[in-house]
Protein backbone atom coordinates (compact mmCIF):
# COMPACT_ATOMS: atom_id res chain seq x y z
CA UNK A 1 0.00 0.00 0.00
CA UNK A 2 1.34 3.40 -0.86
CA UNK A 3 1.96 5.69 2.08
CA UNK A 4 -0.36 8.23 0.54
CA UNK A 5 -3.30 5.84 0.86
CA UNK A 6 -2.65 5.26 4.50
CA UNK A 7 -4.83 7.01 7.05
CA UNK A 8 -2.55 6.06 9.90
CA UNK A 9 1.06 4.95 9.69
CA UNK A 10 2.50 3.73 12.97
CA UNK A 11 6.25 3.06 13.21
CA UNK A 12 8.10 1.57 16.15
CA UNK A 13 5.60 2.77 18.72
CA UNK A 14 6.72 2.00 22.26
CA UNK A 15 4.97 2.98 25.49
CA UNK A 16 6.49 2.82 28.95
CA UNK A 17 5.08 3.49 32.41
CA UNK A 18 7.13 4.00 35.54
CA UNK A 19 5.79 2.03 38.47
CA UNK A 20 6.95 1.31 42.00
CA UNK A 21 8.39 -2.02 40.88
CA UNK A 22 10.15 -0.69 37.82
CA UNK A 23 9.45 0.48 34.30
CA UNK A 24 6.66 -1.39 32.54
CA UNK A 25 7.08 -1.65 28.79
CA UNK A 26 3.45 -2.01 27.78
CA UNK A 27 4.07 -1.64 24.06
CA UNK A 28 7.36 -2.30 22.22
CA UNK A 29 8.16 -1.51 18.59
CA UNK A 30 4.64 -1.75 17.23
CA UNK A 31 4.28 -0.85 13.56
CA UNK A 32 1.28 -1.06 11.26
CA UNK A 33 -0.60 0.93 8.68
CA UNK A 34 -4.31 1.43 8.23
CA UNK A 35 -5.57 2.27 4.76
CA UNK A 36 -8.59 4.22 3.71
CA UNK A 37 -11.77 2.31 4.41
CA UNK A 38 -9.79 -0.61 5.82
CA UNK A 39 -10.61 -2.60 8.94
CA UNK A 40 -7.52 -3.61 10.89
CA UNK A 41 -8.14 -6.08 13.66
CA UNK A 42 -5.85 -6.11 16.65
CA UNK A 43 -6.10 -9.24 18.75
CA UNK A 44 -4.42 -10.27 21.96
CA UNK A 45 -5.18 -11.40 25.49
CA UNK A 46 -5.62 -8.91 28.32
CA UNK A 47 -2.33 -7.26 29.17
CA UNK A 48 -0.97 -7.64 25.65
CA UNK A 49 -0.94 -3.88 25.16
CA UNK A 50 -3.72 -3.45 22.64
CA UNK A 51 -5.71 -0.89 24.64
CA UNK A 52 -2.48 0.95 25.34
CA UNK A 53 -1.89 1.21 21.60
CA UNK A 54 -5.41 2.55 21.12
CA UNK A 55 -4.98 5.18 23.83
CA UNK A 56 -1.55 6.13 22.54
CA UNK A 57 -2.92 6.88 19.09
CA UNK A 58 -5.05 9.70 20.49
CA UNK A 59 -2.66 10.42 23.36
CA UNK A 60 -5.05 9.82 26.23
CA UNK A 61 -2.66 7.71 28.23
CA UNK A 62 -1.97 8.66 31.84
CA UNK A 63 0.40 11.51 32.40
CA UNK A 64 3.32 9.33 33.48
CA UNK A 65 3.37 7.34 30.25
CA UNK A 66 6.21 7.90 27.78
CA UNK A 67 5.77 7.19 24.08
CA UNK A 68 8.48 6.87 21.48
CA UNK A 69 8.31 6.17 17.77
CA UNK A 70 5.99 7.85 15.31
CA UNK A 71 2.30 7.88 14.58
CA UNK A 72 1.76 9.54 11.23
CA UNK A 73 -1.70 10.86 10.50
CA UNK A 74 -1.78 12.25 7.00
CA UNK A 75 1.96 12.61 7.17
CA UNK A 76 2.12 14.49 10.48
CA UNK A 77 3.47 12.87 13.65
CA UNK A 78 0.70 12.85 16.24
CA UNK A 79 3.16 12.27 19.07
CA UNK A 80 4.70 15.68 18.52
CA UNK A 81 1.50 17.65 18.06
CA UNK A 82 1.26 20.78 20.18
CA UNK A 83 -1.80 21.07 22.40
CA UNK A 84 -4.04 22.99 20.01
CA UNK A 85 -3.31 20.77 17.01
CA UNK A 86 -3.80 17.72 19.18
CA UNK A 87 -7.25 18.88 20.28
CA UNK A 88 -8.12 19.48 16.67
CA UNK A 89 -6.95 16.05 15.59
CA UNK A 90 -8.81 14.32 18.35
CA UNK A 91 -12.27 13.17 17.25
CA UNK A 92 -12.08 14.91 13.87
CA UNK A 93 -9.18 12.82 12.64
CA UNK A 94 -9.42 9.82 14.90
CA UNK A 95 -12.18 8.99 17.37
CA UNK A 96 -12.11 6.39 20.10
CA UNK A 97 -14.83 4.06 21.30
CA UNK A 98 -13.40 2.89 24.61
CA UNK A 99 -13.62 -0.45 26.30
CA UNK A 100 -16.71 -0.47 28.47
CA UNK A 101 -18.07 2.45 26.48
CA UNK A 102 -21.22 2.31 28.54
CA UNK A 103 -19.30 3.99 31.37
CA UNK A 104 -17.72 6.53 29.08
CA UNK A 105 -20.73 8.81 29.16
CA UNK A 106 -20.91 11.72 31.59
CA UNK A 107 -23.69 10.82 34.04
CA UNK A 108 -24.82 14.40 34.63
CA UNK A 109 -25.22 15.50 31.02
CA UNK A 110 -27.88 14.46 28.54
CA UNK A 111 -26.93 12.47 25.46
CA UNK A 112 -27.78 15.46 23.35
CA UNK A 113 -25.44 17.79 25.17
CA UNK A 114 -22.62 15.25 24.94
CA UNK A 115 -23.01 15.23 21.15
CA UNK A 116 -23.44 18.97 20.93
CA UNK A 117 -20.36 19.82 22.98
CA UNK A 118 -18.03 17.88 20.71
CA UNK A 119 -19.59 19.39 17.59
CA UNK A 120 -19.35 22.92 18.92
CA UNK A 121 -15.79 22.42 20.08
CA UNK A 122 -14.60 21.52 16.60
CA UNK A 123 -16.96 23.45 14.33
CA UNK A 124 -18.18 26.99 14.44
CA UNK A 125 -21.89 26.30 14.54
CA UNK A 126 -24.66 27.64 16.69
CA UNK A 127 -26.10 25.54 19.47
CA UNK A 128 -29.33 25.19 17.51
CA UNK A 129 -27.55 23.92 14.41
CA UNK A 130 -25.57 21.45 16.46
CA UNK A 131 -28.73 20.21 18.20
CA UNK A 132 -30.40 19.77 14.82
CA UNK A 133 -27.86 17.21 13.73
CA UNK A 134 -28.42 15.01 16.79
CA UNK A 135 -31.62 13.19 15.71
CA UNK A 136 -30.06 12.08 12.44
CA UNK A 137 -26.96 10.84 14.23
CA UNK A 138 -29.01 8.79 16.69
CA UNK A 139 -31.11 7.30 13.94
CA UNK A 140 -27.89 6.22 12.26
CA UNK A 141 -27.17 3.89 15.15
CA UNK A 142 -30.75 2.82 15.61
CA UNK A 143 -31.80 4.93 18.58
CA UNK A 144 -35.13 6.72 18.73
CA UNK A 145 -34.31 10.46 18.37
CA UNK A 146 -36.93 11.23 20.99
CA UNK A 147 -34.53 9.88 23.58
CA UNK A 148 -31.87 12.48 22.96
CA UNK A 149 -32.81 14.36 26.13
CA UNK A 150 -32.25 11.30 28.25
CA UNK A 151 -29.47 10.90 30.79
CA UNK A 152 -27.13 7.91 30.48
CA UNK A 153 -28.61 6.11 33.49
CA UNK A 154 -32.01 6.08 31.80
CA UNK A 155 -30.71 3.99 28.90
CA UNK A 156 -29.79 0.34 28.71
CA UNK A 157 -26.19 -0.80 28.26
CA UNK A 158 -26.66 -1.59 24.60
CA UNK A 159 -28.26 1.77 23.92
CA UNK A 160 -25.44 3.56 25.68
CA UNK A 161 -22.96 1.64 23.56
CA UNK A 162 -24.77 2.82 20.45
CA UNK A 163 -24.79 6.40 21.74
CA UNK A 164 -21.05 6.32 22.17
CA UNK A 165 -20.66 5.02 18.64
CA UNK A 166 -22.96 7.78 17.40
CA UNK A 167 -20.85 10.40 19.20
CA UNK A 168 -17.74 8.81 17.71
CA UNK A 169 -19.15 9.38 14.23
CA UNK A 170 -20.45 12.88 14.86
CA UNK A 171 -17.53 14.59 13.15
CA UNK A 172 -17.14 11.93 10.46
CA UNK A 173 -13.54 11.05 11.36
CA UNK A 174 -11.12 9.26 9.09
CA UNK A 175 -10.48 6.50 11.60
CA UNK A 176 -12.59 5.06 14.39
CA UNK A 177 -10.81 3.00 17.02
CA UNK A 178 -13.11 0.45 18.62
CA UNK A 179 -11.72 -1.13 21.75
CA UNK A 180 -13.70 -4.24 22.67
CA UNK A 181 -16.96 -2.86 21.29
CA UNK A 182 -18.95 -5.93 22.16
CA UNK A 183 -17.63 -7.23 25.46
CA UNK A 184 -20.27 -6.88 28.17
CA UNK A 185 -23.04 -7.15 25.61
CA UNK A 186 -25.06 -10.28 24.99
CA UNK A 187 -24.48 -12.23 21.79
CA UNK A 188 -27.56 -10.98 20.00
CA UNK A 189 -26.77 -7.35 20.62
CA UNK A 190 -23.16 -8.04 19.74
CA UNK A 191 -24.05 -9.15 16.24
CA UNK A 192 -26.46 -6.25 15.77
CA UNK A 193 -23.82 -3.71 16.78
CA UNK A 194 -21.15 -5.21 14.57
CA UNK A 195 -23.54 -5.30 11.59
CA UNK A 196 -24.39 -1.67 12.25
CA UNK A 197 -20.73 -0.67 12.35
CA UNK A 198 -20.19 -2.51 9.07
CA UNK A 199 -23.12 -0.75 7.48
CA UNK A 200 -21.96 2.66 8.71
CA UNK A 201 -18.47 2.01 7.47
CA UNK A 202 -19.76 1.28 4.01
CA UNK A 203 -21.99 4.32 4.14
CA UNK A 204 -19.53 6.88 5.53
CA UNK A 205 -16.23 5.40 4.41
CA UNK A 206 -14.16 5.56 7.59
CA UNK A 207 -11.42 3.13 8.56
CA UNK A 208 -11.67 1.03 11.70
CA UNK A 209 -9.09 -0.23 14.15
CA UNK A 210 -10.97 -3.10 15.77
CA UNK A 211 -9.44 -4.27 19.02
CA UNK A 212 -10.60 -7.39 20.76
CA UNK A 213 -9.53 -10.55 22.54
CA UNK A 214 -12.21 -12.38 20.56
CA UNK A 215 -10.38 -13.74 17.56
CA UNK A 216 -13.52 -15.07 15.89
CA UNK A 217 -15.21 -11.73 16.01
CA UNK A 218 -12.27 -9.86 14.54
CA UNK A 219 -11.47 -12.47 11.93
CA UNK A 220 -14.99 -12.17 10.64
CA UNK A 221 -15.01 -8.39 10.30
CA UNK A 222 -11.45 -7.32 9.60
CA UNK A 223 -9.61 -7.25 6.31
CA UNK A 224 -6.20 -7.24 8.00
CA UNK A 225 -5.34 -8.95 11.24
CA UNK A 226 -2.54 -8.22 13.72
CA UNK A 227 -1.83 -10.41 16.73
CA UNK A 228 -0.24 -8.90 19.79
CA UNK A 229 1.64 -10.66 22.54
CA UNK A 230 3.50 -9.11 25.46
CA UNK A 231 3.41 -5.67 23.90
CA UNK A 232 4.68 -6.66 20.48
CA UNK A 233 3.04 -7.57 17.21
CA UNK A 234 3.89 -11.19 16.54
CA UNK A 235 1.92 -11.76 13.36
CA UNK A 236 0.17 -9.52 10.85
CA UNK A 237 -1.42 -10.17 7.51
CA UNK A 238 -4.65 -10.49 5.53
CA UNK A 239 -7.31 -11.79 7.91
CA UNK A 240 -8.33 -14.81 5.90
CA UNK A 241 -4.76 -15.87 5.37
CA UNK A 242 -3.76 -15.53 9.01
CA UNK A 243 -6.75 -17.58 10.09
CA UNK A 244 -6.31 -20.18 7.41
CA UNK A 245 -2.58 -20.64 7.88
CA UNK A 246 -1.34 -19.12 11.12
CA UNK A 247 2.44 -19.05 11.33
CA UNK A 248 3.12 -17.93 14.89
CA UNK A 249 2.53 -20.66 17.51
CA UNK A 250 0.58 -18.16 19.61
CA UNK A 251 -1.85 -17.42 16.77
CA UNK A 252 -2.26 -21.12 16.19
CA UNK A 253 -2.96 -21.68 19.89
CA UNK A 254 -5.53 -18.86 19.91
CA UNK A 255 -7.30 -20.32 16.93
CA UNK A 256 -7.24 -23.78 18.41
CA UNK A 257 -8.77 -22.62 21.66
CA UNK A 258 -11.99 -21.49 20.01
CA UNK A 259 -14.70 -23.78 18.81
CA UNK A 260 -17.03 -23.27 15.91
CA UNK A 261 -20.59 -24.39 15.96
CA UNK A 262 -20.39 -26.32 12.72
CA UNK A 263 -16.85 -27.56 13.07
CA UNK A 264 -15.72 -30.95 14.26
CA UNK A 265 -16.34 -31.82 17.89
CA UNK A 266 -12.80 -31.70 19.07
CA UNK A 267 -10.75 -31.21 22.19
CA UNK A 268 -10.45 -27.50 22.86
CA UNK A 269 -6.79 -26.55 22.62
CA UNK A 270 -5.12 -25.37 25.76
CA UNK A 271 -2.58 -22.64 26.24
CA UNK A 272 -0.78 -23.18 29.51
CA UNK A 273 1.06 -20.55 31.47
CA UNK A 274 0.66 -16.82 31.74
CA UNK A 275 1.82 -13.79 29.75
CA UNK A 276 5.16 -12.45 30.93
CA UNK A 277 5.80 -9.62 33.32
CA UNK A 278 6.36 -6.52 31.24
CA UNK A 279 8.94 -5.00 33.54
CA UNK A 280 12.47 -5.02 32.31
CA UNK A 281 13.84 -5.75 28.87
CA UNK A 282 13.00 -9.11 27.37
CA UNK A 283 15.97 -11.22 26.43
CA UNK A 284 14.48 -13.34 23.70
CA UNK A 285 11.10 -14.32 22.39
CA UNK A 286 8.48 -13.48 25.00
CA UNK A 287 6.36 -16.50 24.08
CA UNK A 288 9.24 -18.92 24.67
CA UNK A 289 8.07 -20.29 28.07
CA UNK A 290 4.66 -21.27 26.67
CA UNK A 291 5.61 -22.26 23.15
CA UNK A 292 5.06 -25.86 22.13
CA UNK A 293 7.54 -25.51 19.27
CA UNK A 294 10.24 -23.76 21.27
CA UNK A 295 13.85 -24.76 20.66
CA UNK A 296 16.98 -23.85 22.59
CA UNK A 297 18.33 -20.50 21.49
CA UNK A 298 14.93 -18.94 20.90
CA UNK A 299 15.20 -17.11 24.21
CA UNK A 300 18.47 -15.43 23.26
CA UNK A 301 17.34 -12.84 20.73
CA UNK A 302 14.06 -11.01 20.22
CA UNK A 303 12.51 -12.18 16.93
CA UNK A 304 11.69 -9.38 14.48
CA UNK A 305 8.81 -9.22 12.05
CA UNK A 306 9.73 -10.78 8.75
CA UNK A 307 7.66 -11.49 5.70
CA UNK A 308 6.74 -15.12 5.00
CA UNK A 309 4.18 -14.47 2.29
CA UNK A 310 3.28 -11.25 0.45
CA UNK A 311 1.64 -9.01 3.02
CA UNK A 312 1.94 -11.63 5.77
CA UNK A 313 4.61 -11.07 8.46
CA UNK A 314 5.62 -13.08 11.51
CA UNK A 315 7.96 -12.40 14.43
CA UNK A 316 9.13 -15.90 15.27
CA UNK A 317 12.42 -17.77 15.32
CA UNK A 318 10.77 -20.62 13.42
CA UNK A 319 10.81 -18.35 10.39
CA UNK A 320 14.29 -16.91 10.45
CA UNK A 321 15.71 -14.36 8.03
CA UNK A 322 17.65 -15.79 5.16
CA UNK A 323 20.86 -14.41 6.66
CA UNK A 324 20.27 -16.23 9.92
CA UNK A 325 19.95 -19.56 8.12
CA UNK A 326 23.55 -19.18 7.19
CA UNK A 327 24.78 -18.62 10.74
Amino acid at each position, binding site marked *: MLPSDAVLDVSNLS*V*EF*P*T*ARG*IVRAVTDVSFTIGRGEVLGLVGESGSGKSTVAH*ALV*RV*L*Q*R*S*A*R*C*TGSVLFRGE*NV*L*SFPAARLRQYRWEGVSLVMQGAMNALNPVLTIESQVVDVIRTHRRVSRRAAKASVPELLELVGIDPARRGAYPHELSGGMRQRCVIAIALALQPDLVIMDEPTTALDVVVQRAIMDEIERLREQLGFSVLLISHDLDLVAERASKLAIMYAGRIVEVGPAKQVVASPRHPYTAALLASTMSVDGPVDRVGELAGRPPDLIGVQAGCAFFPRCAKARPGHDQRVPLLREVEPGHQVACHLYPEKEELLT
Partner: protein
Amino acid sequence: MTYLRRALSVARRSARAAFTRLTTSKKAVFGAAVVLCFILVGLLAPVIAPGNPLAVVGPQNLAPSAQHLLGTTGEGNDVFAQVVWGTRNSLAVGFLTGATIAIIGVAIGLSAAFFGGWADNVLTLLMNVFLVIPGLPLLVVMAAFLPRTTLSVSFVLAIAGWAGSARVIRSQALSVVKRDYVAAATVIGERPLRIIVMEVLPSLSSLIASALFGAIGYGIGSLAALQFLGLGDLTTVSWGTILYWAQNNSSLLQGTWWQFVPAGACLALTCAAISMLNFAIDEVTNPRLRTIRERGVRLVRRARRARQEEPHAA
Protein backbone atom coordinates in the same frame (compact mmCIF):
# COMPACT_ATOMS: atom_id res chain seq x y z
CA MET B 1 -10.43 -18.81 70.84
CA THR B 2 -8.26 -19.83 67.93
CA TYR B 3 -10.23 -17.73 65.52
CA LEU B 4 -9.36 -14.64 67.50
CA ARG B 5 -5.70 -15.55 67.22
CA ARG B 6 -6.02 -16.03 63.48
CA ALA B 7 -7.91 -12.78 63.04
CA LEU B 8 -5.19 -11.02 64.97
CA SER B 9 -2.51 -12.41 62.71
CA VAL B 10 -4.34 -11.21 59.63
CA ALA B 11 -4.72 -7.80 61.20
CA ARG B 12 -1.07 -7.84 62.18
CA ARG B 13 -0.03 -8.61 58.61
CA SER B 14 -2.05 -5.79 57.12
CA ALA B 15 -0.83 -3.48 59.87
CA ARG B 16 2.76 -4.31 59.02
CA ALA B 17 2.17 -3.53 55.34
CA ALA B 18 0.48 -0.28 56.20
CA PHE B 19 3.24 0.54 58.66
CA THR B 20 5.94 0.29 56.00
CA ARG B 21 3.98 2.52 53.72
CA LEU B 22 3.27 4.99 56.48
CA THR B 23 6.85 5.37 57.58
CA THR B 24 7.68 6.68 54.13
CA SER B 25 4.91 9.24 54.25
CA LYS B 26 6.08 12.62 55.47
CA LYS B 27 2.69 13.48 56.83
CA ALA B 28 2.52 10.35 58.93
CA VAL B 29 6.01 10.84 60.30
CA PHE B 30 5.32 14.44 61.25
CA GLY B 31 2.00 13.58 62.82
CA ALA B 32 3.32 10.64 64.78
CA ALA B 33 6.37 12.55 65.95
CA VAL B 34 4.32 15.43 67.32
CA VAL B 35 1.84 13.19 69.07
CA LEU B 36 4.58 11.07 70.62
CA CYS B 37 6.30 14.25 71.76
CA PHE B 38 3.24 15.41 73.61
CA ILE B 39 2.62 11.99 75.11
CA LEU B 40 6.17 12.08 76.40
CA VAL B 41 5.69 15.54 77.87
CA GLY B 42 2.53 14.39 79.60
CA LEU B 43 4.18 11.30 81.04
CA LEU B 44 7.25 13.20 82.22
CA ALA B 45 5.30 16.15 83.64
CA PRO B 46 6.55 15.68 87.21
CA VAL B 47 10.10 15.72 85.87
CA ILE B 48 9.79 18.64 83.50
CA ALA B 49 7.74 20.88 85.77
CA PRO B 50 7.92 19.59 89.31
CA GLY B 51 5.44 20.83 91.87
CA ASN B 52 1.76 21.62 91.83
CA PRO B 53 0.74 23.57 88.72
CA LEU B 54 -2.03 25.25 90.71
CA ALA B 55 0.35 26.59 93.31
CA VAL B 56 0.82 30.30 93.50
CA VAL B 57 4.46 30.80 92.63
CA GLY B 58 4.78 34.45 92.03
CA PRO B 59 3.14 37.75 91.26
CA GLN B 60 0.28 37.76 88.80
CA ASN B 61 0.54 38.40 85.09
CA LEU B 62 4.30 38.31 84.88
CA ALA B 63 5.77 38.23 81.40
CA PRO B 64 7.95 35.23 80.42
CA SER B 65 11.31 35.28 82.14
CA ALA B 66 14.12 32.97 83.10
CA GLN B 67 12.31 32.03 86.31
CA HIS B 68 8.93 31.47 84.71
CA LEU B 69 9.48 30.34 81.12
CA LEU B 70 5.99 31.25 80.03
CA GLY B 71 5.15 33.82 82.66
CA THR B 72 2.38 33.64 85.22
CA THR B 73 -1.38 33.58 85.11
CA GLY B 74 -3.90 35.98 86.56
CA GLU B 75 -3.76 33.96 89.79
CA GLY B 76 0.00 33.82 89.97
CA ASN B 77 0.43 30.24 88.71
CA ASP B 78 3.31 29.26 86.48
CA VAL B 79 2.01 29.04 82.91
CA PHE B 80 4.70 26.63 81.74
CA ALA B 81 3.89 24.20 84.54
CA GLN B 82 0.20 24.46 83.72
CA VAL B 83 0.72 23.79 80.04
CA VAL B 84 2.95 20.79 80.77
CA TRP B 85 0.61 19.28 83.34
CA GLY B 86 -2.38 20.19 81.21
CA THR B 87 -1.05 17.87 78.53
CA ARG B 88 -1.99 14.93 80.72
CA ASN B 89 -5.63 15.79 81.06
CA SER B 90 -6.11 16.92 77.50
CA LEU B 91 -4.48 13.88 75.96
CA ALA B 92 -5.86 11.35 78.41
CA VAL B 93 -9.47 12.47 78.11
CA GLY B 94 -9.01 12.86 74.38
CA PHE B 95 -7.72 9.32 73.99
CA LEU B 96 -10.37 7.95 76.32
CA THR B 97 -13.14 9.69 74.40
CA GLY B 98 -11.62 8.66 71.10
CA ALA B 99 -11.34 5.03 72.14
CA THR B 100 -14.91 5.01 73.47
CA ILE B 101 -16.27 6.52 70.28
CA ALA B 102 -14.28 4.12 68.15
CA ILE B 103 -15.53 1.10 70.09
CA ILE B 104 -19.15 2.26 69.98
CA GLY B 105 -18.78 3.21 66.33
CA VAL B 106 -17.28 -0.12 65.33
CA ALA B 107 -19.83 -2.10 67.32
CA ILE B 108 -22.82 -0.24 65.95
CA GLY B 109 -21.46 0.22 62.44
CA LEU B 110 -20.57 -3.45 62.05
CA SER B 111 -23.86 -4.62 63.52
CA ALA B 112 -25.86 -2.39 61.24
CA ALA B 113 -23.94 -3.56 58.20
CA PHE B 114 -23.90 -7.22 59.08
CA PHE B 115 -27.40 -7.78 60.39
CA GLY B 116 -29.12 -5.54 57.89
CA GLY B 117 -32.86 -5.31 57.62
CA TRP B 118 -34.80 -3.40 60.22
CA ALA B 119 -31.86 -3.42 62.65
CA ASP B 120 -29.86 -1.55 60.05
CA ASN B 121 -32.69 0.89 59.41
CA VAL B 122 -33.11 1.70 63.09
CA LEU B 123 -29.39 2.08 63.73
CA THR B 124 -28.89 4.20 60.62
CA LEU B 125 -31.74 6.47 61.63
CA LEU B 126 -30.21 6.85 65.06
CA MET B 127 -26.83 7.62 63.50
CA ASN B 128 -28.24 10.21 61.15
CA VAL B 129 -30.22 11.94 63.87
CA PHE B 130 -27.14 12.29 66.04
CA LEU B 131 -25.13 13.46 63.07
CA VAL B 132 -27.51 16.16 62.02
CA ILE B 133 -28.14 17.67 65.44
CA PRO B 134 -25.45 20.36 65.74
CA GLY B 135 -22.61 19.21 67.94
CA LEU B 136 -21.69 22.15 70.07
CA PRO B 137 -25.16 23.17 71.24
CA LEU B 138 -25.89 19.55 72.08
CA LEU B 139 -22.64 19.28 74.00
CA VAL B 140 -23.35 22.50 75.84
CA VAL B 141 -26.85 21.49 76.82
CA MET B 142 -25.75 18.08 78.02
CA ALA B 143 -22.71 19.38 79.87
CA ALA B 144 -24.73 22.15 81.48
CA PHE B 145 -27.08 19.67 83.08
CA LEU B 146 -24.60 17.03 84.10
CA PRO B 147 -22.04 17.24 86.87
CA ARG B 148 -18.77 18.88 85.93
CA THR B 149 -16.49 15.89 86.27
CA THR B 150 -13.96 14.58 83.76
CA LEU B 151 -15.84 11.31 83.42
CA SER B 152 -19.19 12.91 82.70
CA VAL B 153 -17.62 15.30 80.19
CA SER B 154 -16.04 12.34 78.46
CA PHE B 155 -19.41 10.62 78.47
CA VAL B 156 -21.08 13.66 76.97
CA LEU B 157 -18.44 13.90 74.24
CA ALA B 158 -18.91 10.24 73.35
CA ILE B 159 -22.68 10.58 73.14
CA ALA B 160 -22.40 13.56 70.84
CA GLY B 161 -19.64 12.16 68.68
CA TRP B 162 -20.15 8.42 68.11
CA ALA B 163 -22.27 8.77 65.00
CA GLY B 164 -19.52 9.94 62.66
CA SER B 165 -17.30 6.90 63.16
CA ALA B 166 -20.29 4.56 63.13
CA ARG B 167 -21.50 5.82 59.80
CA VAL B 168 -18.13 5.61 58.10
CA ILE B 169 -17.53 2.09 59.39
CA ARG B 170 -21.01 0.97 58.46
CA SER B 171 -20.70 2.11 54.85
CA GLN B 172 -17.35 0.38 54.39
CA ALA B 173 -18.50 -2.72 56.25
CA LEU B 174 -21.52 -2.91 53.95
CA SER B 175 -19.29 -3.33 50.92
CA VAL B 176 -17.21 -5.97 52.70
CA VAL B 177 -20.24 -7.87 53.94
CA LYS B 178 -21.59 -8.11 50.40
CA ARG B 179 -18.46 -9.86 49.24
CA ASP B 180 -18.60 -13.48 48.33
CA TYR B 181 -16.35 -14.86 51.03
CA VAL B 182 -18.61 -13.53 53.74
CA ALA B 183 -21.65 -15.06 52.04
CA ALA B 184 -19.72 -18.29 51.79
CA ALA B 185 -18.92 -18.23 55.49
CA THR B 186 -22.58 -17.65 56.33
CA VAL B 187 -23.67 -20.51 54.13
CA ILE B 188 -21.17 -22.85 55.77
CA GLY B 189 -22.79 -21.97 59.05
CA GLU B 190 -20.15 -19.99 60.87
CA ARG B 191 -21.44 -18.08 63.85
CA PRO B 192 -22.03 -14.36 63.18
CA LEU B 193 -19.52 -13.19 65.76
CA ARG B 194 -16.85 -15.37 64.26
CA ILE B 195 -17.58 -14.10 60.75
CA ILE B 196 -17.44 -10.50 61.91
CA VAL B 197 -14.16 -10.93 63.74
CA MET B 198 -12.41 -13.15 61.24
CA GLU B 199 -13.68 -12.05 57.84
CA VAL B 200 -14.98 -8.52 58.11
CA LEU B 201 -12.80 -6.84 60.73
CA PRO B 202 -9.36 -7.41 59.15
CA SER B 203 -10.29 -5.69 55.90
CA LEU B 204 -11.57 -2.72 57.86
CA SER B 205 -8.46 -2.31 59.99
CA SER B 206 -7.14 0.80 58.26
CA LEU B 207 -10.56 2.40 58.30
CA ILE B 208 -10.94 1.66 62.00
CA ALA B 209 -7.53 3.19 62.62
CA SER B 210 -8.58 6.26 60.68
CA ALA B 211 -11.85 6.47 62.63
CA LEU B 212 -9.95 6.09 65.88
CA PHE B 213 -7.61 8.94 65.07
CA GLY B 214 -10.47 11.12 63.93
CA ALA B 215 -12.32 10.42 67.15
CA ILE B 216 -9.27 11.20 69.27
CA GLY B 217 -8.81 14.49 67.44
CA TYR B 218 -12.47 15.29 67.99
CA GLY B 219 -12.15 14.34 71.65
CA ILE B 220 -9.19 16.59 72.30
CA GLY B 221 -10.64 19.53 70.38
CA SER B 222 -14.17 19.33 71.73
CA LEU B 223 -12.97 18.82 75.28
CA ALA B 224 -11.00 22.03 75.00
CA ALA B 225 -14.03 23.79 73.54
CA LEU B 226 -16.23 22.69 76.42
CA GLN B 227 -13.64 23.64 78.97
CA PHE B 228 -13.16 26.98 77.25
CA LEU B 229 -16.86 27.63 77.73
CA GLY B 230 -16.54 26.82 81.40
CA LEU B 231 -18.35 23.50 81.23
CA GLY B 232 -15.46 21.27 82.10
CA ASP B 233 -14.03 20.37 85.47
CA LEU B 234 -12.55 23.70 86.45
CA THR B 235 -10.51 22.19 89.25
CA THR B 236 -8.30 20.28 86.82
CA VAL B 237 -5.48 21.73 84.79
CA SER B 238 -6.02 21.22 81.09
CA TRP B 239 -5.30 23.18 77.93
CA GLY B 240 -8.97 24.11 77.68
CA THR B 241 -9.21 25.31 81.27
CA ILE B 242 -6.05 27.37 80.85
CA LEU B 243 -7.76 29.10 77.93
CA TYR B 244 -10.91 29.56 79.99
CA TRP B 245 -9.04 31.32 82.79
CA ALA B 246 -7.18 33.37 80.23
CA GLN B 247 -10.42 34.51 78.63
CA ASN B 248 -11.87 35.18 82.08
CA ASN B 249 -8.84 37.23 82.91
CA SER B 250 -9.33 39.27 79.73
CA SER B 251 -5.75 38.45 78.95
CA LEU B 252 -6.24 39.56 75.38
CA LEU B 253 -7.22 43.03 76.36
CA GLN B 254 -4.55 43.15 79.01
CA GLY B 255 -1.98 42.04 76.49
CA THR B 256 -0.84 39.06 78.55
CA TRP B 257 -0.58 36.85 75.46
CA TRP B 258 1.49 34.18 77.17
CA GLN B 259 -1.57 33.08 79.06
CA PHE B 260 -3.41 31.81 76.03
CA VAL B 261 -0.94 31.39 73.16
CA PRO B 262 1.04 28.37 74.44
CA ALA B 263 -1.97 26.26 75.42
CA GLY B 264 -3.73 27.11 72.20
CA ALA B 265 -0.63 26.35 70.18
CA CYS B 266 -0.27 22.93 71.83
CA LEU B 267 -3.91 22.26 71.06
CA ALA B 268 -3.59 23.35 67.46
CA LEU B 269 -0.41 21.34 66.93
CA THR B 270 -1.84 18.18 68.44
CA CYS B 271 -5.07 18.39 66.45
CA ALA B 272 -3.14 19.12 63.27
CA ALA B 273 -0.75 16.22 63.89
CA ILE B 274 -3.62 13.80 64.41
CA SER B 275 -5.32 15.13 61.31
CA MET B 276 -2.10 14.58 59.33
CA LEU B 277 -1.89 11.01 60.57
CA ASN B 278 -5.49 10.48 59.53
CA PHE B 279 -4.84 11.89 56.10
CA ALA B 280 -1.79 9.69 55.71
CA ILE B 281 -3.88 6.62 56.53
CA ASP B 282 -6.42 7.70 53.90
CA GLU B 283 -3.60 7.89 51.41
CA VAL B 284 -2.52 4.35 52.22
CA THR B 285 -5.97 3.06 51.38
CA ASN B 286 -6.39 5.32 48.34
CA PRO B 287 -2.93 5.79 46.83
CA ARG B 288 -4.18 8.25 44.26
CA LEU B 289 -4.61 10.85 46.99
CA ARG B 290 -0.90 10.99 47.69
CA THR B 291 0.85 14.20 46.83
CA ILE B 292 2.76 13.84 43.61
CA ARG B 293 6.21 13.87 45.13
CA GLU B 294 5.31 10.91 47.28
CA ARG B 295 4.05 9.01 44.24
CA GLY B 296 7.44 8.67 42.69
CA VAL B 297 7.93 11.44 40.24
CA ARG B 298 11.58 10.64 40.93
CA LEU B 299 11.08 7.36 39.12
CA VAL B 300 9.96 9.16 36.01
CA ARG B 301 12.90 11.53 36.08
CA ARG B 302 15.31 8.68 36.58
CA ALA B 303 13.79 6.82 33.67
CA ARG B 304 14.02 9.85 31.49
CA ARG B 305 17.66 10.37 32.28
CA ALA B 306 18.41 6.75 31.55
CA ARG B 307 17.10 7.04 28.06
CA GLN B 308 19.20 8.41 25.23
CA GLU B 309 16.70 10.19 23.06
CA GLU B 310 14.27 12.89 24.17
CA PRO B 311 10.92 11.10 24.40
CA HIS B 312 7.71 12.49 23.04
CA ALA B 313 5.02 13.35 25.49
CA ALA B 314 2.29 10.80 26.17
